[in-house]
C-alpha cells in the first residue's frame, strides 16, 4: 500500500443524450489515492463537480465487485482499461502514475447507442438471449439433479463459458463491433451440456440471426474480444459457435 497521492488528468466523453453530439471534456482530479478504484476516482470527481454546481459525469456501475457487468468504460483505448481479466470497477489507481492523462469513452458500437456520457444501451444482448439462450424447461419439470452425470472436464468447460458477465467489452474491443464472443459463450455453455442438446441447432441459428438483426458486425477472428474480456472467455468458444452454426445450417430442414 502506498500513501502517495496523485494528480490525474482526464479527458472524458460528454454527451447529453442519444440524439446529441458528444465531445471530450478535460478534468483534473487531485489527491487520488492509489488504493482507490477507478470508479471511486469518478465518485470523488463527481462530488467536486456537484459542489461547484456543475453537472456530474454519468456512468453505469452497480456491484463494484466485477460480476454484474454494468460498468463499461473505454479507458485509453481499451475496454475496462490496461489490466487483463479485470472490469473497470476492479481497476485500481495503483495501475496509473502521478500526472497521467487518461482518456475515458463509452463503448462504441452501433448496436450500443449512447444514452448519456459514458452510459450505453445494451438491451440488444437481452434480446439475443431471449431469441434462444436458454433451455426450454418450465419450473417443476426437472428430474433429480444427479440423474444427469456430467463429466468434470465438460462441466468445467461449460462453467468457463458461463462466466461471461454480459458487459459488452468484447463488442467494444472489436473493430467490427461483433458480438460473437458473447453469443458463443452462451451457445457453448449449452452445447457442452446434455441439457442443451434438444435445442442445440435452433439455438445457434436463432441467436446468430438475432445478433445480425441487432446490427453487430461480423467476426474476422482478430481475437481482440477475448484479449480484452474481463472474464477471459476463450476464443475456442467462437470456433465452437462456428461449428454449431455450420452444422445446424447444413442439417436444417428446408
Amino acid at each position, binding site marked *: 500500500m502506498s500513501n502517495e497521492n496523485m494528480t490525474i488528468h482526464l479527458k472524458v466523453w460528454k454527451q447529453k443524450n442519444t440524439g446529441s453530439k458528444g465531445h471530450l471534456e478535460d478534468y483534473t482530479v487531485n489527491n487520488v*489515492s492509489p488504493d482507490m478504484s477507478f470508479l471511486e476516482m469518478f465518485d470523488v470527481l463527481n462530488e467536486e463537480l456537484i*459542489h461547484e454546481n456543475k453537472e456530474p459525469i454519468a456512468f453505469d456501475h452497480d456491484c463494484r465487485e466485477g460480476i454484474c457487468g454494468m460498468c463499461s468504460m473505454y479507458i485509453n483505448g481499451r475496454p475496462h482499461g490496461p489490466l487483463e481479466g479485470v472490469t473497470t470497477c476492479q481497476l485500481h489507481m495503483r495501475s496509473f502514475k502521478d500526472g497521467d492523462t487518461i482518456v475515458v469513452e463509452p463503448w462504441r458500437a452501433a448496436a450500443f447507442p449512447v444514452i448519456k456520457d459514458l452510459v450505453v444501451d445494451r438491451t440488444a444482448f*437481452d434480446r439475443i438471449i431471449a431469441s434462444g439462450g436458454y*433451455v*426450454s424447461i418450465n419450473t417443476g419439470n426437472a428430474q433429480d439433479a444427479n440423474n444427469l452425470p456430467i463429466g468434470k472436464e465438460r462441466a468445467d468447460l461449460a*462453467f468457463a463459458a458461463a462466466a461471461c458477465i454480459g458487459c459488452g467489452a468484447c463488442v467494444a474491443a472489436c473493430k467490427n463491433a461483433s458480438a460473437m464472443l458473447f453469443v458463443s459463450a452462451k451457445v457453448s455453455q449449452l452445447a457442452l451440456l446434455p441439457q442443451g442438446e434438444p435445442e442445440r441447432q435452433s439455438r445457434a441459428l436463432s441467436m446468430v440471426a438475432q445478433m445480425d438483426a441487432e446490427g453487430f458486425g461480423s467476426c474476422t477472428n482478430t481475437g481482440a474480444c477475448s484479449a480484452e474480456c474481463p472474464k477471459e472467455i476463450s476464443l475456442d468458444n467462437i470456433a465452437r459457435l462456428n461449428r454449431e452454426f455450420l452444422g445446424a445450417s447444413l442439417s436444417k430442414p428446408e
Partner: protein
Amino acid sequence: MTSSKLDAKVPQGPIGEKWTKYKSTISLVNPANKRNLEIIVVGTGLAGASAAASLAEMGYQVKAFCFQDSPRRAHSIAAQGGINAAKNYQNDGDSVYRLFYDTVKGGDYRSREANVHRLAEVSANIIDQCVAQGVPFARDYGGMLKNRSFGGTQVKRTFYAAGQTGQQLLLGAYSALERQVGLGAVKMYSRHEMLDVVIIDGKARGIIARNLTTGKLERYFGHAVLLCSGGYGNVFYLSTNAMGSNVTAAWKAHKRGAYFGNPCFTQIHPTCIPVSGDHQSKLTLMSESLRNDGRIWVPKKKDETRAANDIPEEERDYYLERRYPAFGNLVPRDIASRAAKERCDAGYGVGLTKQAVYLDFRFNLINKYGRAEASRLNIENPDLDTLVRLGKEVVKEEYGNLFDMYKQITGEDPYEVPMKIYPAVHYTMGGLWVDYNLMTTVPGMYALGEANFSDHGANRLGASALMQGLSDGYFVIPITIGAYLSSEIRTKAIPTDHEAFVAVEKQVKERLETLKNIKGTQSPESFHKRLGHIMWEKCGMARNEKGLTEAIGEIRELRKEFWKDLRVTGDIDEFNPELDKAGRVADFLELGELMCIDALERRESCGGHFREEYQEDGGEAKRDDENFMFVSAWEYNKESDWTLHKEVLEYENIKIAQRNYK
C-alpha cells in the same frame, strides 16, 4: 398475544404435512382465466426473475421491472459461496428436518417455523430445476454434484459454482425469464424504478414507475404486485450490496400500508475486505465458503508488528477454534463477526487500522489439498514446495475468482500471505411482513426473497439467501398466489387513467419536483455517507439504549437538513442518476429511524441484534424468550410515528435452547 391485524395463515396439521396438504387444497385459477390476469414483478434478482418466469410459464401476463440496464445485473449476481439444499448427496445424515432445524436455530429462534420447514422441503427441487436449466454447478470426476460446508451446520449441503454461485443461478433464472420475454409472456421494463404503489379499494392494483432513461413517469396496472426488490443494507452506506441496491420499492409499500417486519435484524458478515480510506464506496465480501479452508486468527501479542508469515504457530490465537471447538471456523456469521470485533476492540487487530483479523489458507492448502493431491498422484514424501504447488491448484479451482478479486482490491496475494478481513453489513433479515402466502398486510401485494422478513429470524445462515429467493419465486408464489387471484378472475384490467393512478402519479411528481427544487448545497451522496456513519456507529454490530436514542435524534436532524439543503443537479425529465439517488437516500433516512426504534424496543440480544445490556458472562447474546419471542411488525402512521404489532412465535417442533456452537 399476536396482534389481531396479523394473520399468518399458517395451515393446520403436522409441520411435515402442512405444505403438501395446502398445495393440494389451495384454490386454483384455470388456464383460460390466467391469461386475463396481470402480475407486476418489481426486481429481477433470484426471487423476481424466478417468479416472473414461473408465473408466465403458467399463463399469467407478467410485467417485470428493474432499475439496472438488464435484469441479469440484479445483485443476486454477486452471491459467491453457494446454495443449500437437503439432498443428502454426501450421505452424511442430512434431511429436510435437519435443514429446517439448523435454519431455525441459526436464526436464533426468531423465524416462523412453518415457512422455514417449507423452505427446507422445496430446497431439493431448486437444485433439480437449476441443473435442468444448465446451471454449471461444481462436479466431481464421476460427474456427480459436489458439496461444501457453510457456517452453522455440520453436514455438507451447499451446492456451488466456484465463487460465483449467485451469478450462475441468476443467469439460469434470467434465461428462463428472457425465454418468456421472447415468447411475449413477460414484458420487461429495464431502467425503470418503481416509485409508488397504487391501491384501489384496499387492494394493490399497480405501480408508478419512472423510466430512468427518459425521466418520464409511467403507470402500470396489475391484479397483483410482487415486490422482489431485495434488502436494505445500503442504509449503512458501506455494505456489500451493489451501489444501486435500495429500499425504495419496499418503503413505498410500507408507507401505503404494508407492515415492516423486524427492521433491526441486520446481518454483519464476518469476512469482508476492510475499509481502506474515506473514498471507499462499498465493501467487498470474501465468501463464507472460504471458512471451509481458511483459519481465522490474530496474534497472541497486542500491537504485534511482525508480518503474518513471521509469527510462529504457537504465537497465534485461532480464537474461533479456541472458543467454539465443535464448529470452529464455521460458527454462524453473527457469532464470527462479534468474535472478530471483540479481538480487535481488545487490541489484537492487525493491519494499518488494527481493524482486521487474518484469514489464513496456508495450513489447508498444504495439509488438506496438497497432501490429497500428492497421494492421488502417487507422489511419496512430497517436499513443502510440491505440496504448496499442488495445493494451490486445488484452491484456485475452488475459490480462484475470490482470490483474484482480493488481490485486485488490496494489492496482496492471498496464496502467499493471509487475507485481512473484517465484518461488514451484508444482508437484512428484516423486511416487509408477509403471511404464509407471502402476502403483505396489503391485499394483492406480495414480498419475496430478501425483501420479506420471513425465513431467517435474527440471523441468516450462509448459502440460504439464494435458497430462499428461488424457493419463493419458483415454488411458493406460483402456488400461493392462486389463493388470491382465484377470487380476482372477475376483475377486469383497470385502465391507468383511473383517478387513483392519476392521484398517485401526481404525488410522485410533486416529490421529484420538491427534491429538485430544494437547490441547496449538499449532494445526495454526502447525506447518505452521514446517515451510514450514524447507523454503523449506533445501530451496527453492537447497540445500546443510549446510542440508539441518540441515533434517532441525529437521523431526524439529518433528515431535516436533507430537505433544506439538498442539491440535485440535472433535470427531472432526463437520465439523471443524482435524482435517482436523492429519492433513495430520502427513503433510507426514514427507514434508519425505524430500524433504531425497533432495535431500541427489542430489549434482548438475539442473532445479529446485539444489545450490549443483554449478554451472558462470556459475551454471548442473551435472548429473552419470555418477553421477545415475537416478530415486530411496524405499521406506518405518519412521519416518525409507527404502531408496533406483534406476531407471537410458537415452536412446536423444535426445542428452544440457548444456541450452543461449543
